[in-house]
Each structure stands twice: as structure tokens, then as C-alpha cells.
């Protein structure tokens, strides 16, 4: 390269000046190694004499540890929800759903309690026909269930209450299947399918035959039922 050209000379000088300036700046600005550098001692506290870098590193480590704990807690909360089938009954919309995790396996229209009150002639006994809310479990499953009429049914119909339990049995009114969930409450079928979707029951949950069949097949004793 010829240095006779003045432009070339100027550029070469510029490069040299820039390189020297760069090295100078680098030398001035470079961090001085210290005994407490975060790489060597990252467990120092935030008030460490190691300076702001150590403090930041400690904050980062704290955030990482918290993130890990939060992830574990989220996973544990997700695991709390049953992986098997569950039955959800939304009484406000008269909908019953059989779920497997987030998936809806079956959905149908149901009927729940009519909210009415009944008292016997003495006024000593009274009933409120509500469907209970909350958590229940499938206690048993019955094929071709027979309804054992309770006292209120006789009072409602104005019939004498039989003393013999066997006289209370009434087959073919609860559909093909019944799923018991405690205190005399059942999920069962109905003869009055046109009333499905209206709250007309005495507390049990009535569903259509097809949905009932799917519920019966999937539910096992212990299957959770949430009514809300």
C-alpha cells in the first residue's frame, strides 16, 4: 500500500488512532477482579460488600428458586383435580356433564329439586324439596331400580302411609338405572321426559335415558359428583 496518497495516509492514521482509543477506553472501563465476585461467591447476601452485581445475582437466584416453587405448586394443584371421571351438575342451567379431566364425555339436560315445602297434617314434620349443593360421591349403582316411596310421597298424594316396607316398593318409575349419592338422593331416569330442564323433582336429579346410560357406565363407587 502506498502512503504517498494523502487520503490513504489520513485513513491509516485514523485507524491507528481509533485502535489506540479503543484499547485505552477498554483499559479504563474494565472491571477490576475482586475477591467477592459473584462467580466465586454467589451465595452472598444482598448486603454483601461484593457490590451491586452480587446483589443482582442474589435477586436472580431468589427469583429462580421462587419460580421453581410456584411451578411445583401449580403442578400439585393441577394434580389435586381427579384424573378419572367426574360428574358435574349445574342446577342453574339444568345441565349434567360427565367429565374426564377437561374433556366432556357426556352432557345432558337434567331436572333438580322444585324448592317447594310440604308439611304433614300435624305440622310436626316438614320437607323442603331442594337438591343439595356441594361435593358428593357415587355410593352405589343400581340396574332396574325400585323406588321405595318415602312418607312425603304418601302425604303429597293424600294416601295412608303403609307400615309394611314391602308395600312401598314401586318399580319402573326411576328409569333403567339409578346412581345413589347419599341421604336418599339419586341420579335416575324419568317417565316424564318432557319435564326435563325444569326444576320439578323432590331433590333427586332426573336425566334422560341416553345420558343416564353413559353416566352409569362411567361412574364407579367413589366417583366425585359436584352439584352447584
Amino acid at each position, binding site marked *: *500500500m502506498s502512503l504517498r*496518497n494523502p*487520503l*490513504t495516509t489520513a*485513513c*491509516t492514521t*485514523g*485507524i491507528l488512532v*481509533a*485502535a489506540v*482509543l*479503543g*484499547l485505552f*477506553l*477498554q483499559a479504563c*472501563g*474494565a*472491571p477490576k477482579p475482586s475477591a467477592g465476585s459473584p462467580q466465586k461467591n454467589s451465595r452472598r447476601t444482598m448486603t454483601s460488600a461484593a*457490590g451491586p*452485581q452480587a*446483589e*443482582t445475582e442474589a*435477586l*436472580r437466584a*431468589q*427469583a429462580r428458586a*421462587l419460580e421453581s*416453587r*410456584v411451578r411445583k*405448586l*401449580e403442578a400439585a*394443584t393441577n394434580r*389435586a*383435580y*381427579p384424573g378419572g371421571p367426574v360428574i*358435574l351438575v*349445574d342446577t*342453574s342451567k339444568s345441565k349434567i356433564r360427565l367429565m374426564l379431566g377437561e374433556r366432556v364425555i357426556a352432557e345432558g339436560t337434567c331436572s333438580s*329439586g*322444585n*324448592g*317447594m*315445602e*310440604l*308439611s304433614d*297434617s300435624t305440622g310436626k314434620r316438614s320437607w*323442603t324439596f331442594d337438591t343439595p*349443593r*356441594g*361435593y358428593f360421591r357415587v355410593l352405589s349403582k343400581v340396574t332396574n331400580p325400585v323406588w321405595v316411596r318415602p312418607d312425603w310421597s304418601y*302425604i*303429597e*298424594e*293424600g294416601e295412608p302411609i303403609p307400615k309394611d316396607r314391602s308395600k312401598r316398593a314401586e318399580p319402573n318409575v326411576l328409569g333403567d338405572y339409578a346412581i345413589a349419592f347419599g341421604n336418599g338422593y339419586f341420579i335416575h331416569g324419568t317417565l*316424564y321426559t318432557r319435564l326435563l330442564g*325444569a*326444576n*320439578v323433582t323432590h331433590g333427586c336429579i332426573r336425566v334422560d335415558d341416553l345420558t343416564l346410560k353413559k353416566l352409569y357406565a362411567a361412574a364407579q363407587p367413589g366417583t366425585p359428583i*359436584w352439584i*352447584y
Partner: protein
Amino acid sequence: MNRQEIIIHRGTMIRTLALGLTAVAVLLLSFILFCRSRQVASGPSLSEDQQLRERIAALSRQEKLLSTELTLAKNPAPYIAIDIAGRRMELRVQGRSLRSFPIAKIKRSDTEAFITQTWLLMEAKPWENPERARVVPGSGEATSSSIATRDPWGPKRMPADFDLICKDDRALEVRSLPSTQSGNRFTRWFGSGYRQVRDWARDVFSRRRRDYREFIEIWLAEEDAQLLFWSLPKQIPILLVN
């Protein structure tokens, strides 16, 4: 200028241009190195520390919330979660939401700082009990069904203003604002004002709050308040998240 001179001149131009570009590149590189070395020397900027602190605070809050919720979620019974800052109320089971209600307004008796608290509902006390139809003995199931179909039992017949009396003299007071779907803006505004004055007057005259160690007043849309009352089991834990 002959052909040889032209070639020499062009070569000089190219070399000059290349050298100029190299000079600019070296200067730029030096500047970047300088800035980086300055940054390393002074440590990360304050804003990064601030961001980290904020993130840690948010994560700590989430950790506390999740660990409290996990305790409730291990039990299959439903619970209510109220996010005070997020103004949302949810009916949940085992970490899943069954119903969700936006909260319009919240008033609290205390200013005590807490991340989470769990209250236990003992009794739901409505201002007015819902009217229930009575079955006349001997009328028969067909008559009952007919009445139930004509005047259906459902959330719309539930009270919209009620107190959820909790264990340890705590109360969650649920109050209703006119439904967002009802009337026009003016009637809703007027209805909202009326209800708030009514609640204030009731509070002044009944002095019921003297009985409560702590209370939280929550204002929901009317249909949400009714749906909440409709969905409530007899006892339910209430998780409050600040």
C-alpha cells in the same frame, strides 16, 4: 489520463474506501466494548434490580396463594376464592373454576395487610328469604309439577342481598347492583345509587356490623349475587386473596 493511470487511480480509491470502512468499524467496536465494560463495572442497571424485586414480590404472593389454595384443593369440597385486587370471585373445586363473578366494588373493615386468609361460612343470612311454594297435602305430584313449571324454582328467585356469616365473627356481605342487562344507563345509575343508600341506611339503623370482628362488603351484579346464593353449599371455605 491513460489507461494505466486510470487503473491505478481506481485501485487507490478502492483501498481508501476499504480503509475508511475499517476505521469506522474499529471505532464502533471500541465504543461497544467501552459501553459493555462500563456496564459490567457498574453492575446491571437499577431498573433490572427493581424489576427483579417486583417479580420476586409477585412470585411470593403467588406462592403464598397457591400453597393456601393447595391446602383447600386437596379436599374435594368446593370453596370460594375472592381475589380482592383482581376483583373476581370464583366457586372452585380442586383448583378448577365452576363459576366466576366479577366484583363491582369492595369495602373492607380492616386495613390489615395480608396475602391470603381463609374464612369458613357457617350460615347464609338473606335480607329476605326466598318465597317457597307450599305443597297442599293430597294435591298430588302432578299438581306440584304443574306449579313448579309455572313458577320455576331457580336462581332468579334467590335473594340478591345477603350476609355470609363466617366463623370467628367474620362476615362477607354480598350486595347487588342492578343487572347490566336491565334498563338503560340512567335507570341503572339511579338503581345503583338507591341500593347503596339503602344499604347505608340499613347499616346505620341495624348496626349489625358491631357484631362482626371483620367484614368485607362485596357488590355484584344482581344476577351474579342470586346465582352465588343459589350455588352455595351449607358450609364452604372462603379463600381471600389480597
